[in-house]
């Protein structure tokens, strides 16, 4: 494969990196005043990357033509679909950030630049076809993310979140690297294809350790139990637009990456890692649900909710078949919409002075004071709980269908049974908004960008979206097929 074709495949990443570097220079010279143009330019860059990736997803790109740089990088439909979600989520974070930071006089152009670099890292992660690409992408994303978590330097909680994220993230990277080095040592290659061939006849002890350590490191990134401890603290402490970003884009990237490692590199040895994934899935569902019950802060609650959701997505991975991979993508699409929607509501929760409020009790009686906002959050909460006819249910349906196809009936039954525990705290939020006496705390007016995002995400999870399930399903099926074709 010649160099020009390879470059052709990475045009979206090129756009992100070049515009990131240029905007960094502009930010360095332009200072604080340049934050608005830099944000807009970043959004444009993300949009351009989005539309460049879209055709490959619609066409279901797969096979050797999608391999760039001698098997380092794979721009197939699976990566493409994940990238679309990542770009959309990153764009959403950029759109809502100014309103939040302006109040603190903390809006600086480097925010947008950091988001761009993190997005670039994620873009590389999901396209990784080699352990080295994987690690470069992962670290690129993580380093930007550590800074973003600590973005409000004067705020203790933000600094604490950044530090915690960094220390634990570094530990996870270490575990991941250890797993990678074992894998390399016992297979003699870093490329996923090579690993697949080397493991085709079974795993020896070293390879088994390698895959388990790698999954453990990745489980940290997707905040699956038992590597989830950092999530509530970081989500609570980080500035809300950053939390929204963390809960959506990197989740997609890390889950897609996990799927690639598990299904592509170690796809022939599914039995070896299936048990681990099943355990992580069930533990995440249960711990995510139980942990959320006592929470009083809505950001912490949403953190546990995201742990819970990761559990359901892992059910799709545990199925280890094409429909499982497709179900993961569908679930992720609706998960991103629900996450963005719920965090937009959190961003809209501000008292009359414009100060953000984060207590669940502050939502009391929202249905009488702010009916539209309350109805949107109601839809999102029921969707997260997996109640039909909202689309969160469709995502759960798809992953459990894959699990049933793979004969994992016990997993499906326990998982869906545990989802009832989760329903408890989702309906608690509805109860606070609709049944309690108004606390009348949420007073500040929200900007159009919040309403637009909220409207888009609510529509996307509303029953109307059943009409696009055919189209979305075929895209996800093609993407999943691309993943398995590569394998």
């Amino acid at each position, binding site marked *: 494969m010649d160099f020009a074709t390879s470059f052709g495949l990475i045009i979206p990443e090129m756009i992100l990196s070049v515009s990131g570097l240029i905007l960094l220079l502009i930010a360095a010279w332009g200072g604080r005043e340049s934050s608005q143009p830099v944000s807009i330019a970043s959004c444009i860059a993300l949009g351009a990357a989005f539309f460049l990736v879209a055709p490959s997803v619609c066409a279901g790109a797969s096979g050797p033509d999608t391999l760039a740089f001698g098997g380092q990088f794979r721009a197939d439909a699976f990566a493409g679909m994940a990238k679309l979600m990542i770009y959309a989520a990153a764009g959403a974070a950029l759109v809502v950030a100014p309103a939040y930071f302006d109040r603190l006089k903390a809006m600086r152009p480097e925010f947008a630049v950091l988001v761009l670099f993190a997005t670039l890292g994620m873009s590389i992660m999901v396209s990784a076809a080699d352990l080295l690409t994987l690690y470069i992408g992962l670290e690129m994303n993580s380093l930007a993310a550590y800074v973003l978590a600590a973005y409000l330097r004067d705020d203790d909680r933000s600094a604490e979140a950044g530090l915690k994220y960094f220390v634990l993230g570094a530990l996870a990277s270490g575990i991941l690297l250890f797993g990678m080095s074992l894998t390399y040592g016992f297979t003699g290659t870093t490329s996923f294809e090579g690993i697949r061939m080397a493991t085709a006849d079974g795993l020896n002890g070293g390879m088994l350790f390698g895959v388990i350590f790698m999954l453990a490191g990745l489980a940290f990134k997707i905040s699956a139990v038992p590597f989830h401890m950092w999530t509530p603290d970081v989500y609570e402490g980080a500035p809300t637009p950053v939390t929204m970003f963390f809960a959506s884009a990197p989740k997609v990237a890390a889950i897609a990456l996990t799927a690639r490692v598990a299904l592509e590199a170690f796809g022939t040895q599914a039995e070896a890692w299936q048990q681990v994934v099943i355990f992580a899935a069930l533990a995440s569902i249960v711990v995510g649900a139980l942990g959320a019950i006592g929470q009083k802060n809505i950001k912490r609650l949403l953190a546990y909710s995201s742990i819970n959701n990761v559990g359901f997505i892992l059910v799709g991975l545990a199925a280890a078949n094409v429909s499982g991979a497709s179900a993961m993508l569908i679930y992720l699409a609706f998960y991103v919409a629900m996450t963005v929607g719920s965090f937009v509501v959190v961003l809209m929760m501000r008292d009359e002075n414009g100060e953000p409020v984060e207590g669940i009790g502050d939502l009391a009686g929202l249905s009488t004071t702010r009916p539209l906002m309350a109805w949107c959050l109601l839809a999102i909460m029921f969707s997260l709980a997996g*109640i039909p006819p909202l689309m969160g249910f469709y995502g759960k349906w798809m992953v459990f*269908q894959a699990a*049933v196809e793979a004969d994992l009936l016990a997993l499906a039954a326990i998982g869906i*049974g545990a989802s*009832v525990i989760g329903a408890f705290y989702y309906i608690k939020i509805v109860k606070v908004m*609709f*049944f309690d006496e108004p606390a009348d705390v949420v007073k500040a007016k929200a900007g159009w960008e919040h309403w637009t995002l909220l409207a888009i995400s609510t529509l996307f999870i509303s029953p109307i979206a059943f009409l696009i399930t055919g189209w979305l399903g075929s895209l996800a099926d093609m993407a999943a097929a691309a993943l398995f074709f590569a394998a």
Partner: protein
Amino acid sequence: MGGFPILSIMLLVPLLGAIACLFLEAKQARLVALVATLIDLALGIALWVNFDIGGAQWQFVERADLFAGFQWAMGIDGISLMLIMLSVFLMPVCIGASWEAIQKRVGEYMAAFLLMEVLMIGTFAAQDIFLFYIFFEAGLIPMYLIIGIWGGTDRIYASYKFFLYTLLGSVLMFIAMLWMVNEAGTSAIPALMEYDFPAGAQTWLWLAFFASFAVKMPMWPVHTWLPAAHVQAPTAGSVILAGVLLKLGGYGFIRFSLPMFPEASVQFMWVIFALSMVAVVVTSLIALVQHDMKKLIAYSSVAHMAIVTVGLFSFNVQGLEGSMIVMLSHGLVSGALFLCVGVIYDRLHTREIDRYGGLSINMPKYAVLFLLFTMASIGLPGTSGFVGEFLSLAGIYQVSSTVAFVCTTGIILGAAYMLYLYARVAYGVQKNEDAAAMPDLNMREMWLLAPIAAVVLWMGVYPESFLAPMRSDIAILDARLARAAPAGDAHLEIGEPAPVTEEAEHGGGH
């Protein structure tokens, strides 16, 4: 009506009404809701008139490939038709019952009710198992809001209990559905009804469906959400809950559990019988000691539903027809009884039986209608309750005389608690001045109760109108069950009149 998508229109009308209500003022919202439900009632009557009795099993069929994984498939048989009729008949009554009682957040209230109507009709008309599940389960959302926002003092607890109980029941059923579709390769309900699942798998599938339908039914001992939900729900909420939502469980048994898993149904027959026998006796006794009128009627609902389940699991035509009629009759009668409670609750704002007394003196019209519904609930001949209970018990007697014996005590106990309730409310001295000063039924309340009374008498005197559409469907179901039907202990020879002497020998032998 070839090609006219009447079922989809019946869903669309209340849906549009619901959306409109959300944005309207109280006055217009009431009107819009009433008009929408009346249009649906008219469409329902058109549906019944055009239903070809003895024609194709599935009529008014609509199919559209709109979604991935399942179809927009609608269609009804006689069983669905009757339950849809019950829903569209009760809906305008519910709207009327809330006309004055609901003063806060009227638009949202009406929207929730119209949404309920959409989902109920959808549940009964769905021909795709996933579409069914979506409608079946989505009903949780409006019902949760209705109980939680407009309920009484303990509404939060009741709404949680209702939501989580029913959700836990349903999710297991969903996994079973996924397995079935995976196994049979189709999600169409008519095809699944004819598919023979392996007997070993049927056991598990039946249990999963049972988990859901037993909670919805509700069967003892998972009935505890019902009194809590009823007591706290507003009057119209109780009417819908008792009138239609409780029928979802029975509909589920007759549409899914019995035809899809005949062997497992027989295998678990005694579980159903045991739970139902306990329910009939225990909940009737509990009803006897209630001080709260709504709770009393709620417990009586559990007892009536137990008669439905034994009828369903008697595996013969009488039992199946009987339980359908009990469902319809109970929907009307308990709905009407909740309305009767609502009428006096609106005046005195208490449901304590002791606070009333001697109402037949100052509220004669009310007393007459209340008496009629009390009698119908007991199962007095001439009312709808008699037809259903008689058929169900006749059906179960062919399977087990013991079960029939125990369940019959339910009728006696039912008479006890209902008459005791009626005596305390309507007869006796007027010990409370405020209760004695209550005015009689007004026009609106008459309009709510009189049509129900008329249908109750109609069903009691000429049940054929209601049985005819269901007859062929029940015969098909009976034929499907024949291979598994258990031998009864009564050894009845039905349809062959025996000589007098032989009857003397065998009569009363069991």
